[in-house]
């Protein structure tokens, strides 16, 4: 039976009115959603005069790199250069994401392909921990980090992130849709479990890595509280922590005296811009694989 959607003919082609409405709506709303990011980029490139003009200009007129230059040479009260925070953030995020992927891949293989005792117990534990929020257990985590002697080290910023339940869950679901015969064939050929994992499972889960990388990188890269809790010295702090201290000051300033919040907005916007670029870049890089993993994200209860 032919489609009975409302269509009309234009240049001999069927035009779907519903589809056009959807595209127009998505485009309009998408542009609206982009506004805060446009303001961010615009503010980051604004010269100081433009930050103060009235009425405020939404878009930058004479873009300048001055804010970025200020940021890179600026030093906090304890003479820690901005680049140190950037370095810490990059180091912590990259090492954490790397190990998260390795540890998660290792765990996803037996969890989806082996029928060992306790498997269901472990898996339901992981399902429950999808509801886990690190923010809720800040104190005990602080106590554990202290008692392990990790306080004020990179280990304190990295280790607590490595067990990433959402990541393991996605990889396990992804591997589960691979037919068991693939592995049984390998077993008959006399391959060891390690070979099966390394030669068969690992290449198969690789698309799922993209999703795990994006989700864990975003979470760790934007996490200000680990740095606040687990490190004391200024040279161990990360970028989001640094931004949270200045934005806190800005919020109180904005509430107190008008204009004070705007005064530092240029440099802050430049820092935020630098912080947003890597996550967006990684997402665009991996987008295709992400959708193919997320297709298996469902929880079958």
């Amino acid at each position, binding site marked *: 039976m032919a489609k*009975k*959607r409302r269509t009309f003919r234009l240049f001999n082609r069927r035009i779907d009115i*519903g589809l056009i409405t959807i595209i127009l709506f*998505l485009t309009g*709303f998408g542009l609206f959603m982009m506004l805060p*990011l446009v*303001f*961010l980029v615009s503010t980051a490139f604004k010269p100081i005069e433009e930050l103060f003009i009235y*009425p*405020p200009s939404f878009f930058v007129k004479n873009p300048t790199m001055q804010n970025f230059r200020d940021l890179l040479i600026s030093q906090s009260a304890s003479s820690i250069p901005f680049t140190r925070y950037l370095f810490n953030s990059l180091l912590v995020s990259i090492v954490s994401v790397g190990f998260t992927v390795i*540890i998660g891949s*290792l*765990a996803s*293989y*037996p969890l989806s392909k*082996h029928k*060992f*005792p*306790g498997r269901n117990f472990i898996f339901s534990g*992981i399902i429950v921990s*999808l*509801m886990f929020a690190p923010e*809720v*257990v*800040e*104190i*005990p985590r602080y106590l*554990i980090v202290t008692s392990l002697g990790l306080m004020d080290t990179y280990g304190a910023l990295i*280790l607590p992130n490595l*067990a990433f*339940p*959402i990541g*393991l869950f996605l990889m396990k679901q992804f591997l589960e849709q691979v037919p068991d015969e693939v592995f049984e064939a390998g077993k008959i050929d006399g391959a060891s*479990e*390690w070979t099966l994992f390394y030669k068969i499972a690992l290449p198969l889960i690789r698309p799922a890595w993209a999703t795990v990388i994006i989700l864990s990188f975003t979470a760790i890269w*934007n996490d*200000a509280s680990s740095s*606040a809790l687990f490190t004391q010295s200024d040279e161990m702090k990360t970028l989001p922590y640094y*931004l*949270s201290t200045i*934005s*806190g000051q800005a919020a109180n300033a*904005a*509430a107190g005296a008008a*204009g004070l919040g705007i005064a530092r*907005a240029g440099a802050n916007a430049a*820092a*935020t811009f630098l912080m*947003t670029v890597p996550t967006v870049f990684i*997402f665009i890089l991996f987008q295709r694989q*992400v*959708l193919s*993993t*997320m*297709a*298996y*994200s*469902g*929880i079958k*209860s």
Partner: protein
Amino acid sequence: MAIRLRAVGREMWKWRISYLFLSPFILLFALFIVLPTLTSLGLSFTYYNILEPPKWSGWSNYKLLITDDDVFITALKNTLYFALVTGPLGYCLAFLFAWMIHQIPAKARTYYTTVFYVPSLTSGVAMAVVWLIVFANDSNGYLNSFLMQFGFINEPIQWITDVKKIMPVIITISLWMSLGTGFLAFLAGFETINTELYDAGKVDGIRSRFQELWYITIPSMKPQLLFGAVLAIVGSFKVGEVSMAVAGFPSPLYAGHTIILHLHDYAVLRYEMGYAAAISVVLFILIYGLGRICFKVFASKGEL
């Protein structure tokens, strides 16, 4: 009994490689997720200030929390207000936008997906710099300036100091950031639905996009819908960071105070760890309880 134990032991020994593969994850999982949760539970029944060892205090933290702490009640109300608006609304928006993006030609989908997903990649703390300009209290604020130029208002609105405006501002910002992992799961879920189902639906008299959505798409996407719901609940109950960054800490008259911020206040600023642990247990129970309800809802429908 002993024989059964030995059988289980032999079975476990047979799968020793599986446990070896799992061990790094399980070790870290136990150390940084299970142990902290249990410690919270234990500490919530004690008085503990870090300097002295914890002292058992029974239910007193919980009693104090519920009967004597007005600020906690404010935080609870704000969190529930926030979660009940942002959770369902953000969830529905994520589904709606994912659905609409799925309707458009595949080539254009990538661009639209990026546009709608990017806000959730930003850091709530870092974006405060933009929100403080957009929602600034004086006429220099973008929103005030915009509304005044078009004659909607004559006086600037105190977006981030007016006690009645703080929560709506935080909700708006959070909704902007809410098209996250759930949104991606929905988007991918649409792509897995067997297209034959749609053809069969047409034969059965399904005519519009909306009928298709209601009768075919939603029932086939229950697993993804559950996954999205669980993440939406956690996301909406751990609100706090955005409030702190935009409205300051503490916010005027605690108007933007949430459970997470109350927890932070007692844990990090007052060193009352036992009391803070009780707050975290309450929050955990709220999240877990709602999560269980979601599991029930999606499971029971699945049997139909």
